[in-house]
């Protein structure tokens, strides 16, 4: 599909990785570590978070340095912004981290 590249999915991913509800390993999520190809892990799941880091003119919720990484500790440590980030994450979940 033409849309895959901009949404951060790659054909090199393991079967099912990036398919809604399918599990991905931490190592696979870690390869999505650029602004245009940004997934993050949070509380045992992974999220297609490209737009979180300001891609395509969106507001930057996370710095690009979080791409490919587990943001759980970061989000837990937030104070006023925690509800905002958790609300956003709720819409962007793809599947569990195995």
């Amino acid at each position, binding site marked *: 599909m033409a849309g*895959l590249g901009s949404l951060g999915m790659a054909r090199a991913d393991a079967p099912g990785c990036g398919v*809604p509800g399918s599990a991905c390993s931490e190592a696979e999520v870690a390869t999505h570590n650029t602004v245009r190809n940004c997934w993050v892990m949070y509380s045992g799941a992974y999220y297609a978070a490209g737009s979180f880091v300001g891609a395509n*003119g*969106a*507001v930057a919720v996370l710095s690009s340095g979080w791409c490919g990484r587990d943001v759980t500790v970061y989000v837990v440590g937030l104070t006023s912004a925690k509800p905002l980030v958790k609300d956003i994450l*709720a819409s*962007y*979940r793809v599947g569990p981290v195995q």
Partner: protein
Amino acid sequence: MDVVLAVVVVVAVVGALGAQKGVRQQVGKTVTAALPSPVPPHMYKTGETATMGVYALTVKQTRVDAQGTRPYVPGAGYQYYVADVVLKNTGKEALEAAPAVQMYLRDATGANYAMAPAPLDVPFAAGQLVAGEERAGQVSFAAPQTAVGLRLIFDPAPAAGAVAVFEMASN
């Protein structure tokens, strides 16, 4: 008897020639018909429902938010495009809704724009839909203010090749 056989043979030969001619004509017509440009995919309008396998997606309405509200402010030259959607699981087993990888915008040039956080009343919640469950919510995207021909693409099984295309509000 010999005369009857001869007549049968002649009829058969003529019939075969006629059939071959007919085939040639059919092939010629088929080639001619295939030359025009491909038929564009069906475009769903606001309020219509696209059913793809066990997914049934309805886009209730779409709108543009050019300004945003802090902390959601689009980047320079961009604006938010918001769609109110309802997704229903019409199957007999649970399925996963993950709009961040199942929905995106595409403009007339073929550029794609992923979901982006924006001020929303009811963000669409990703996750499992049990059999028969219906979930409503909003999905938002950031795309250039100058984008032309924006469409909302619903790709329920990424990489499977089948998508539904919805009209999207523009400027």
